[in-house]
């Protein structure tokens, strides 16, 4: 490590300097442990990790994006984003928030990359257009693909924040005019953690960062490279309207009496049954709501190729109706084993594996509806 790292404060030091006691600190790490889903026996380990880790350098690059992921990131409630960037990580480059512009911004990035070679986290927001030598996204006169390769070279790991850098996103929707691809189409030799969503939930993004900052290792991933703690369950399985689905109580139209009663939105196109995300369990904006709770069918924004799985308000032809035992992995393995990349594969597998159960569930639901109407 370079000399400058000697001056860096650990998380523990910074929190003590803010006026907290060690007792407060232990309480906090207990909370963090619970938040991260670990057993109580791990509290000691979390405490030690936070006492000794340096603030982790993070370089956040922006390509074909709408900045929605950065916007979501700054909505984080726990940790607060101000605490995160002042106390936990060192956000050495992000075009959204950094003070410097132009060559001074570039200088800051180059210095951090050099100083922290091999140890910084690279966050990528946005997709990378590769058509026509990458002329459809240039920054500082250089193409996105060029910048991605350069910044990835010294990264310890890459976090792809959002569906664009994870799957290609909206610009990769048919006909993909600029030849947009996700990060893993270009970078093959680094650990890549996919954090999809359009955008991802704030606390999911900061949670992944905190996991690394706290434990010094990457979170456990599913076969598509997503952290299990956030993407392990379908929205359908954690949806508070699920009992209505099971009982066959569906809203057939927006603003209908059924919609006002909070019936299931499956017949209005809800993608909850095929979407792996934490909307139902964590909720958005510190748990205030999520689309279904506010009356809108899920559009499956964390899933690969969801943009081309439209019209969004058209009912899915094949929807698994099974219980919460399923994860993307257990479903996927039935048909393809450890999956490579494409989520088309996993949604297909989902459908094949569960078609029969689906049909039964639908018939059951329709029967229920008849009884209600009668």
């Amino acid at each position: 490590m370079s000399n400058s790292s000697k001056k860096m404060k650990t998380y523990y030091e910074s929190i003590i300097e803010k006026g907290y006691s060690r007792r407060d600190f232990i309480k906090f790490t207990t909370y963090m442990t619970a938040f991260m889903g670990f057993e109580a026996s791990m509290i000691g380990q979390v405490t030690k990790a936070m006492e000794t880790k340096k603030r982790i350098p993070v370089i956040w690059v922006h390509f074909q994006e709408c900045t929605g992921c950065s916007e979501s990131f700054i909505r984080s409630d726990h940790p607060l984003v101000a605490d995160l960037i002042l106390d936990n990580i060192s956000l050495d480059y992000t075009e959204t928030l950094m003070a410097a512009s132009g060559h001074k911004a570039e200088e800051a990035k180059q210095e951090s990359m050099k100083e922290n070679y091999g140890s910084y986290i690279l966050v990528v927001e946005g997709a990378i257009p590769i058509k026509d030598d990458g002329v459809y996204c240039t920054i500082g006169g250089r193409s996105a693909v060029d910048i991605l390769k350069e910044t990835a070279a010294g990264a310890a790991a890459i976090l792809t924040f959002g569906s664009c850098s994870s799957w290609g996103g909206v610009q990769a929707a048919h006909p993909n005019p600029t030849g947009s691809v996700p990060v893993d189409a270009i970078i093959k030799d680094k650990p890549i953690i996919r954090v999809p969503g359009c955008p991802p939930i704030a606390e999911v993004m900061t949670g992944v960062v905190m996991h690394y900052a706290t434990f010094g290792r990457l979170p456990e991933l599913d076969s598509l490279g997503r952290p299990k703690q956030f993407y392990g369950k379908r929205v359908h399985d954690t949806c508070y309207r699920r009992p209505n689905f099971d009982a066959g109580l569906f809203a057939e139209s927006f603003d209908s009496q059924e919609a006002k009663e909070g019936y299931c939105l499956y017949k209005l196109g809800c993608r909850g049954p095929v979407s792996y995300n934490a909307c139902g369990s964590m909720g958005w904006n510190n748990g205030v709501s999520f689309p279904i709770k506010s009356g809108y069918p899920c559009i499956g924004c964390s899933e690969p190729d969801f943009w081309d799985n439209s019209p969004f308000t058209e009912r899915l032809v094949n929807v698994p109706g099974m219980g919460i035992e399923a994860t993307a992995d257990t479903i996927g393995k039935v048909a393809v084993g450890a999956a490579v990349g494409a989520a088309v594969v996993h949604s297909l597998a989902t459908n094949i594996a569960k078609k029969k159960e689906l049909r039964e569930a639908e018939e059951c639901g329709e029967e229920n509806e008849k009884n209600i109407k009668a």
Partner: protein
Amino acid sequence: MANRIVIDPITRIEGHLRVEAEIKEGKVTNAYVSSTMVRGMEKIVQNRDPRDVWAFVQRTCGVCTTVHAIASIRAVEDALDIVIPPNAEIARNIITVSHAMQDHVVHFYHLHALDWVDITQVLNADPKATSELAQSISKWPNSSPGYFSDVKTRIKKFVDSGQLGIFAKGYWGHKAMKLPAEVNLMAVAHYLEALEWQKEIVKIQTILGGKNPHPHFLVGGMASAINIDEAGGLNTERLAYVGQLLKDAHKFINEVYVPDLLAIASFYKDWGAIGGSKFNNYLSYGDLPTDNYRNPASFKWPQGVILNGDLSKVHPVDLENTSEIKEFVNKSWYNYKDGNDVGLHPWEGETDINYTGPKPPYNHLDVDKEYSFVKTPRWKGKPMEVGPLSRMLIGYASGIPEYKNVVDGALNALDIPVSALLSTLGRTAARGLESKLLADWGLEFFDQLIGNIKNGDTRMANMEKWDPTTWPKEAKGVGYMEAPRGGLAHWIKIKDRKTENYQMVVPTTWNASPRDPEGQMSAYESALIGTPIEDPENPVEILRTIHSFDPCLACAVHLYDEHGKHVSQVQLDGSCSI
């Protein structure tokens, strides 16, 4: 000989923006503004279900995360002749108002302030004097000497850590930084508070649209059904939550944002004579209907145009008149079928890219040729500035009392003439003054919603024309609204129940576009001319003027190359491009 400087990336904006400026004798003498990213949104939504398009085009911008969706559903509703229920109109207004307040505050503190505030000066500030200053301008409770002392300590520890993160390489110690140390400390304290507040106000969108960023919308109204007696709908608790957030916002805007704005502005009054566009034309489509979107006379934000800075007359605007708004591509990387010197009304708009710029990596754009992915819109052939300043000026020129009150109040407080508004300072001030109005309007709209529900009207959506079999074979519409950054409009043509053509003219298209066939500059370029530059190596003055527009570049660029030019062979050495 002029010295050409390049600033790329311009940070603290949405998207990718590049400025090339020529400097002579300490002033900008020429400027070229370029957007260097394109995605092809307009092409991607072709042939899709018009009821889905809002979700795609919403992703043109995650900073102004509601505005494209609203413009889109309005365009479809206009085409299909759908009138939405009053509650849906109010709910959309509440979303627009809450979003604009959040966006303006984030812009001021997190995107713009670091052009004026020197964070390193915080270390020289006296917390007691800062407390006195804060208490003299506001009754905001976080203002004790101990509070500011804690903030100062926190910043000191951060600086001492040696890891400056987002504050590394800022324009600290620059001669153009004029604030006393105490004002810097107050501003930095509020930078941190604003970061916490902005995540609260957006919860209004989470309640009404399910999430933020990118809440959901519905052609025909809103899907957040009202049911004050059920857990599954917009019930009493949900409504009270919205009301509380609007009250909190009112307090934050009036006790933190506006006092800070005026305090900081009072040290930068010279910027009231810098950074105005040279043409002084201002456009607002208007928004926030108090009656109905189809009745622009009922708008809180009035519609109209001001020409040549003449505040005695407001000209009418017609977005459907094909001779008023036209887009040009003579300096942009596109081709029009009938030649690139004509302008096209958006209903007839085309989207074929023809990138003729340099192959990356490059040092300079060839500005004598095409140099941007932004098209150039004109109103009756004239360049227009859009944004909060345009809205405030049109409200002021229209003689609306609440506009007169806030504008005159600020002019008196700063002791500057109304002409000083046509500037970088004016643009930044207008954003804060508008927020003051928005904070009042948010509470008004909320009361109206409660009143309607009380009277038994719980309708949120009009589903009569939801079924595409009820649609005409062909239809066309325009949906417009006022985004935080200015007037936004989407034009749609529907054929056989699919989107046939879709065109967006967005605020930053108006402001950041390249020159038109007559050589007229658009607002960014024009505003930069004459900007004093103390140190060409650290051109913070250019950032002040560019940021005063609140750039939003992914919005400005959404065009597509169907017949993209193939530039050369793929190279794999990593030093160039693949």
